[in-house]
């Protein structure tokens, strides 16, 4: 039972990180109907920028951990958002009125560009950092000496996800920007007729998605204590799977899907085999999609015209 509880905690934390990345996929898909395959690499870039800004701050002799983390968070969100904005501008916008597959191919290309650029610029080796946020709670001491641990870092990851999900659900459902985004999603021409700057709204979507990916990248760095140029690929595919599983286009769905993938992966590793954890996650995805083609929280495409 203790073992189960521990795996549950680990799974929720991993799932939260997937969920944060998945929000970016789901928002972009919602508004431009495109899978942004470079989004996983944006997450990787976020991780690297967090690492670099962290090292710079530490080399200046800063020691106040909360201050460092706050600055790192802001810097990585801003710079990563700039990456997101630039990529949309140079790789997707010129292709928006091209054939449907064109931006998707461009996105795959962009993914390779970012991966290789990071490898060249930062080297191929895994970049570690020492643990920054330490400590935690022992929730339960088992009879055989197994203790259920909840680290402070895990609490932060889950809290960050809950806060950001709430914030962005509010943004999409209650603010003018959110309304504009949904209008563009449903009918871009009509949105433009009503005075919505469609290009700007799409740019903002990429900026927000990249900002969230940066938070995920920073959480990943702090939680696992390392980043590498290749980490965006698998994380990106998992987060994309999470977005589809949750129902692409739905924000809560993205996080729910992320949690589901994180839990499946963790429990499979814990009880069966680590090697086949990805097989398990993707098998569940296939099974869910057979019975619920629009995902867990996706909307059925039935509308009165």
């Amino acid at each position, binding site marked *: 039972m203790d073992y189960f509880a521990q795996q549950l905690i680990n799974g929720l934390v991993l799932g939260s990180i997937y969920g944060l990345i998945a929000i970016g996929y789901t928002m972009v898909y919602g508004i431009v109907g495109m899978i942004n395959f470079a989004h996983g690499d944006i997450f990787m870039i976020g991780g690297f920028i967090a690492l670099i800004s962290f090292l710079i701050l530490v080399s200046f002799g800063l020691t106040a951990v909360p201050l460092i983390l706050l600055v790192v968070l802001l810097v990585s969100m801003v710079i990563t958002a700039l990456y997101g904005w630039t990529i949309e501008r140079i790789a997707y916008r010129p292709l928006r009125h091209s054939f449907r597959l064109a931006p998707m191919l461009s996105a795959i290309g962009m993914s390779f560009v970012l991966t290789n650029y990071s490898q060249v610029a930062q080297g191929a080796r895994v970049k570690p950092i020492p643990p920054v946020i330490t400590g935690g709670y022992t929730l339960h001491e088992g009879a055989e000496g197994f203790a259920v641990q909840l680290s402070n870092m895990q609490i932060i990851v889950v809290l960050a996800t809950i806060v950001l999900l709430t914030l962005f659900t509010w943004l999409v459902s209650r603010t003018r920007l959110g*309304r504009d985004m*949904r209008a563009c999603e449903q009918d871009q021409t009509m*949105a433009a*007729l*009503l*005075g919505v700057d469609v290009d700007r709204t799409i740019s903002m979507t990429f900026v927000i998605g990249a900002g969230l990916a940066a938070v995920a990248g920073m959480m990943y760095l702090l939680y696992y204590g390392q980043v590498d140029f290749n980490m965006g690929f698998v994380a990106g595919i998992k987060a994309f799977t999470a977005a589809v599983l949750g129902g692409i286009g739905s924000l809560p769905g993205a996080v729910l899907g992320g949690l589901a993938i994180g839990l499946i992966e963790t429990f499979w590793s814990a009880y069966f085999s680590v090697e086949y954890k990805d097989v398990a996650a993707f098998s569940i995805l296939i099974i869910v999609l057979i019975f619920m083609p629009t995902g867990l929280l996706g909307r059925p495409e039935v*509308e009165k015209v």
Partner: protein
Amino acid sequence: MTAASPLLAIRGLRAAYGKIEALKGVDIEINSGEIVALIGANGAGKSTLMMTIFGRPRARAGQILYDGKDITTVPTHEIAHLRIAQSPEGRRIFPRMSVAENLRMGADVTDSTDAERDSTLERVFALFPRLKERFAQRGGTLSGGEQQMLAIGRALMSRPRLLLLDEPSLGLAPLIARQIFDAIRTLNRQDGLTVLIVEQNANHALKLAHRGYVMVNGLITLAGSGAELLQRPEIRAAYLEGGRHT
């Protein structure tokens, strides 16, 4: 009437979808405070004209002058800021937004205060009480007539000077169509709203309008007052008596 410069003047306007030319040199003038009807058969280019005013598609030649300024190349999203609003062909309401949000989308462009917005909303409710009853309902679940009311209401929420209405009576029961025409007349008389209305229902439109234009194959072929056009035998034959061509 022609002494003052018109609110909207369209001169030699050409527009095309790819290689298919939909407007072949259209000239139209709309004076402030007028209702102008544009009638013509399916595919004559009426809706294209409405959309070309908003730059979708862009004009290939000619000029669109609004309030004396050339707006031919102004980006689509900035046209709404000039207080031109359109209830487009096919209504194009946002199906997954509530009626409230659809109306709000119309109001957003004005940057008005909450109080101003509420007073405009009350006016829209006065014209279309049904929208008030459906306020929280999703746009996609409304009936055709209600969607039409919503599309017009959304356009009105931006407090336009010039309102473009594309087939407001299409697919509606006669009673509802009359309600909509009555609402347009009220807006014109009480607020001096200038209206360009595209209609296949030429009888209704010409009775409502001060002036009318007839469009055939991307060209204006006839112009005159509403009453005048209603009397023309070729109009009666083509648009009013079941389309019996001679």
